[in-house]
């Protein structure tokens, strides 16, 4: 793991009117690691990634990318840095095929404005192969005919094929069955193996403990702790989610184990 974090947020704050969605949040993720971002509904997970993705502006704080301070004013800025987000609803067009979706908005064309279909098809097949996505029979089949896991795979492949350095996955397994979930988690692990930094947002602690290297817990817009997966238990994380006190890692009181079911 590299010494400087790929992405580091320090003291990030964001409010919508009088609602403080994020207060003084610190967050860091390194290349090659899977950082899980967990928290109850309304904890600020989505707001945090939307700030990073450039969809929301932030009020206060600093964002460092590769140690350099950066300003992200829109999705284009984020994409330029190599940050890609896979949203919960995937943002795929059902009526287009896999190749068309992979290149949507960034189509390759020649001087006559013609789409370079063969080149795009070949690259798509290569990308899917490098991620060991083998369940998709043809890259020319419409996304409408794919299963949930296959769609998720396409969405992830779409995010990583632009030489991205950081991939943020918002609830990638929320709508999937057991086998499909396994498929997607394997894929997430492979991303980290390839040296990408991965931020995984999930409600499912079981999934989180299966793949994450570290876990950041948000509660009521504050970060209440960063845990090494190896050195923590689901109980501790659940306690942080439900009753964590924002005193940065230390000072989590040992309480009520029945909460941890």
């Amino acid at each position, binding site marked *: 793991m590299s010494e400087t974090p790929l992405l580091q947020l320090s003291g990030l704050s964001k409010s919508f009117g009088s609602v403080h969605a994020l207060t003084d949040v610190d967050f860091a993720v390194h290349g090659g690691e899977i950082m899980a971002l967990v928290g109850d509904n309304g904890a600020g997970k989505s707001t945090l990634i939307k700030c990073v993705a450039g969809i929301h502006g932030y009020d206060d704080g600093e964002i460092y990318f590769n140690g350099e301070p950066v300003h992200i004013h829109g999705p284009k800025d984020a994409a330029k840095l190599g940050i890609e987000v896979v949203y919960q609803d995937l943002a795929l*067009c059902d009526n287009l095929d896999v190749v068309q979706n992979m290149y949507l908005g960034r189509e390759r064309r020649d001087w006559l404005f013609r789409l370079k279909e063969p080149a795009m098809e070949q690259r798509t097949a290569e990308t899917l192969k490098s991620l060991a996505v083998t369940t998709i029979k043809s890259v020319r089949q419409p996304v409408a005919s794919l299963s949930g896991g296959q769609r998720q795979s396409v969405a992830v492949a779409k995010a990583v094929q632009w030489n991205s350095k950081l991939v943020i996955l918002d609830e990638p397994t929320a709508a999937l069955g057991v086998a499909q979930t396994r498929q997607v988690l394997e894929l997430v692990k492979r991303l980290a193996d390839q040296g990408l930094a991965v931020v995984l947002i999930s409600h499912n602690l079981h999934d989180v403990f299966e793949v994450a290297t570290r876990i950041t817990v948000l509660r009521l817009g504050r970060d209440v702790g960063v845990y090494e997966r190896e050195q923590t238990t689901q109980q501790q994380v659940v306690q942080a989610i439900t009753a964590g006190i924002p005193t940065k890692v230390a000072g989590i009181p040992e309480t009520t184990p029945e909460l941890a079911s």
Partner: protein
Amino acid sequence: MSSEVDVAAPGISLPEEQEAEEERGLWRRALDNVRTGNLGILPIVIGLALIVVFFSFKATNFFTADNFNNIIVQMAGLTMLAFGVVFVLLLGEIDLSIGYLSGIAALAVAEFQLPGSSHEYPGLVAIAIAVGLCALIGGVQGSVVAFVGVPSFVVTLAGLLIWQGVILQVLEIKGVIVIQNNLINNLANYYFKANAGWIIAAAVTGLYAIGTLGGVIGKRRARVAIRRPLLIVAKFLGVAVACFGTVAISNHASVPKGLPLAGVLVVIFLVGLTFLAKRTPFGRHVYAVGGNAEAARRAGINVARIRVIVFMISGAMAGVGGVILAARLNSVDLNVGGGTLLLDAISAAVIGGTSLFGGRGEVRSALIGALVIATVSNGLDTAGYKTGTIYIVTGVILLLAVTLDTIARRLQVRSGR
């Protein structure tokens, strides 16, 4: 779109010995397609053939070369409008103003060629002004839809009323404007000499062959699987037969002998707009916005810009259609742009298989649908039926086509295609 689906694995080109298997596979796949409801344009083509056979027995002067030419010229204007409708429907929007917008184009082209007036321009300039004006109007309507967020149904319904009003106001005083400019009138009244017709057929076939070959070479070079080589050959043969067959019949006609220019114009726009829709990033983005506007926006596509341009295309095609319709009558009168033109244009696109809900359809569906509508109305007309019957039959065909399409789609969903 779904007709392009197949099961060839990516990145694997078929070795020679598999070609025979591919051939058998084609039949199996065709059967599969029928069973799973992936019918494509097959039902429409069969329906059209039945219509032609029916009227050939019913009316003595239907199945003649003269009437063949007649149908081509009759449907040319409608087809142009329907081309524009396809783009609007691909977005999941609707444009109700195109009927009277085509009237505005007819009015403009007649006005700007008016001999002896202060604004008499050459025919080509008058046409450019008319089409440009319609594109501009389409752009304004599209902007209200895209930037303000008023539903396109309402915006273009207002357009329908407004442009009808403008036509009435202008023509109430003038009555009829006669078009004397030869260039404009020739759009619907010029017929190519026999040899010129053959050359055009050869040129179209040749260009199609070059285009197809280019695609195959590109795929070979990128080592991407070439799907259904037999289908490519079959398509090429179909295009060749259609081109040369059309010219053969047209040359056989007696009164207006030869291939009509209007038909050639339809083919030019068919090729150009198909290229725009299927081969350019813009066309891809139109399908994307129609399929999932939010996904398109997140992919960095300027959705508002796409919407405005599509409404400009719709307006411009209404303009082109209006000019051809005016040229056919050599004049513009109070009925211009009215009647069933609007609904026929939308019906044509839908009968041809374009979805009303966006993201699904082809430019060629407009041509196929217009062919059906023009053939039925021409056939009923030559067989001596009244206008009422024509409307009823057209309505039934529209209902049948869409019902069949809906059932086919449900079958597709059920079989997971």
